[in-house]
């Protein structure tokens, strides 16, 4: 059974259609990326998966726990780092949340546990956001714009840490990423979304060889930034 199943999803903002019949699946343990130009509807999809937006039509089924790293980090800036992490476990209401696990992955956070999250640097905030999403012991991690505003080394570190977790657990990943080169190198399968529709899907290797996709996302300066 698929871990995440999205069927014929239609989401509107007022009259404006942001997602138009989106289908998408993620199997347990799978690495999937969703790429597309600005305004394609990626964040809208994430918000719908998280239950922040309600679809007009279609269904979202998650057979398991999901953790979300929202676009732009979205920490609780007035709360401490530790409180931010703890609130990530809200859905599971666990009495012994895996704080130490997160501190193992991101050791620098331990010393900042009691700082106000709003005072952290962008990279540190992204670490908290990833850690917070991991606190609910998810089987699916949804990351919206992992590398936004981060230095390449920081991205690399976060990627490494997520990879490490995947060695121990069967964590699946749905990655949304502007750096398509990174996303394609990391993930096995990809969906391409444009104007609220999935316009292509398949193995990343095969997709990367399609001229249209290469042109749009990988050629030119598309992936050369990093």
């Amino acid at each position, binding site marked *: 059974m698929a871990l995440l199943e999205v069927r014929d999803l239609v*989401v*509107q*903002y*007022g*009259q*404006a259609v*942001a997602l138009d019949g989106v289908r998408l699946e993620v199997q347990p343990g799978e690495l999937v990326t969703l790429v597309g130009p600005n305004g394609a509807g990626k964040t809208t999809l994430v*918000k719908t998966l*998280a*239950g*922040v*937006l*309600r*679809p*007009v039509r279609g269904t979202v089924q998650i057979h398991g726990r999901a953790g*979300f790293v*929202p676009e732009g980090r*979205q*920490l*609780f*800036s*007035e*709360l401490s780092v530790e*409180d931010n992490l*703890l*609130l*990530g476990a*809200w*859905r599971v209401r666990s009495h012994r949340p895996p704080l130490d696990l997160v501190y193992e992955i991101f050791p620098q956070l331990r010393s900042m546990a009691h700082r106000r999250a*709003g005072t952290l640097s962008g990279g540190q905030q992204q670490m908290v956001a990833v850690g*917070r999403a991991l606190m*609910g012991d998810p089987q699916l991690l949804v990351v919206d714009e992992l590398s936004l505003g981060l230095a390449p080394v920081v991205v690399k570190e976060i990627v490494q840490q997520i990879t490490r977790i995947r060695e121990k657990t069967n964590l699946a990943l749905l990655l949304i990423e502007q750096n398509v080169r990174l996303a394609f190198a990391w993930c096995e399968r990809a969906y391409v979304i444009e104007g609220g529709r999935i316009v292509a899907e398949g193995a990343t290797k095969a997709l990367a060889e399609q001229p249209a996709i290469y042109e749009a996302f990988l050629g030119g300066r598309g992936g050369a930034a990093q």
Partner: protein
Amino acid sequence: MSLLIEYLVSGIAIGCTLALVGSGLVAVFRVTRVINFAAGTFSVVAAFLTASALQTWHLPHGLAEAMGVAVGLGLGLGVGAVALGRRGLSPISALVITFGLAIACYAGELLLWGDLPQSYPGVPGTLTVGKLFIQDQNLLIIGVTLAIFAGIWLFFNRTYLGKGMTACADNPMAAEMMGIDVRRMGLWAFGMGGLLGGIAGVLLAPIQPMTFSSDVNLAIGGFAAAVFGNLMSLDLALLGGIVLGVAESLVAGYFQASYESIVALAVMIAVMTWRAIQRRDQSDVEDRPPAPAAATGGARALWVRVALPLFGIAAALAIPLGLNQSNLTVYITMCLYAVITIGLSLLMGFAGQISAGQAAFMAIGAYTAALLSLHGWPPLLAFLAAPVVSGLFAALIGIPVLRMRANYLAFATMAIQLMLVALLSNIPALGGSTGLVSIPNFGIGSWQIQSLRGYAWLSVAVAVIILFLSRNLIASRPGRALRALATSEVAAESVGVHVMRFKVVVFAISAAYAGLAGAIYAFFMGAITPDGFSLLLSLEFLVMVIVGGLGTLAGPLVGTALLVILNQVLNTLGTQPGMPAYMPEVLSYAVYGCTLVVVLIAFPHGLVPFFSGQFRRWFGRQQQAPTAKPVPGAPVDVEPQRQSWG
């Protein structure tokens, strides 16, 4: 000396109840970013119910108080359910809804309990230390308050649920992503507010009898206390409440009890000024106004731009010719109110701030014009001085208050409203409660307005001029800055709009308009009293603007016309024979309160934008679709499947 200590103790006790109300405000604000105007209502209703339980139903102490508190809790949940009921409602709209509900509750309170003060015995006995007598009730209040504050402090700062609730306001979207039910948390916060307010009311009634309108003072006092902690910190709210209570008790003891709201206001302004000086660095709690309805469309046909307004002016000028004396009075009222509501619409639509005290600025204008012309100034000069004085006064208040990002102006203006009426009735030089009489007619040189029709023309001319001034203001460069401000404060700031200064200017302009209308009103009536500028009138202005639509010019005109007519109907109904004397008030409170709530929930942008949108939709102007614009500052994203209101 012992008198002083007794004042101090009772001041601390009263301050504790204010702090309790304030803690309810903090609870709601922390979780929802809504400033809850109904905070005092919970106390009053709880106290009334306790009084009935004790005196009418003869229930034992303890049970009666518990019932009162329970009703406070229930009322809190009810207000919360309505204020948070619609997804995507902005905090400022929710604020007005709580205001509307508080006003509607007035009607219920009056109907059920009448307008006499209610009280009941508290804990009997006094503590005697030497020559000092301290009522045990005071000690009870202080003890209970300290215990409760410790409890809620622990709740918010030490428990998981408390942190989850705080997270809701900090970042609603992220909270929802973590699976926190933001709206349910908000509801619980309102419940907490109701509970705390209820406890305050039940404790306070034995030492301070309550009437239906005590809630305004309680809410203002509680707010002033909460402002100490920027509506976020509980310990500072407690401190604030005590400072305020002691100050009020000393003023009441040594000067005059009716100056209470002045103390609250003075303390509030002082704290805000101090905070404004302090702050500058840290990001304050942010609260953006609802976006005004789409500005006047681009290229319109010539006849729409020129012919229609000309026709409108001609009609407005011709109407007085066909009216009899009593209808002329209604017409003048309409024009004057329109001047005020246009200003309020600018303030609410563009600066995203609410004034619950426009009648006070009208009063300032009216008294300025009346006093000056009574002292021999030519009427024209007195007339021109009125808006200046009102505007300056507003700027003075606005500079500290508007520095705070959250919507503090609403409370500050309400405090001004109460303070001013109290002051005017107490100052003999201003005529006390009988007001000023035999104000000369308006005139220029030897020419004088002698007839109602003349005043009608004056009023309509002023209204038209104000309308055009405001239109040009909106279309001008500062106007565009204002629109930027209405959409996003941060964005406006980043393109170099000095947000605070603009807000102050708009507030001063709106006050000046009110002052201008007040001046004409004074000349036209020939006599003015403080009661003519009541909180109810301020409320009416608010209803007019919200019904009509924010940030538009047609909106307030339509809203004003509708409400003035409605007012006539209500007055006729309320003064039927056999009705109690307070019946007109009951009707007005009920109708205005409910209107505010219903309009904000059903037509969040007011009637005029709604119907003009419908009109365009029906008559197929395709370029419409101001859809999909989320209400900025909304707790969560707009519900996508919902039809937009555009």
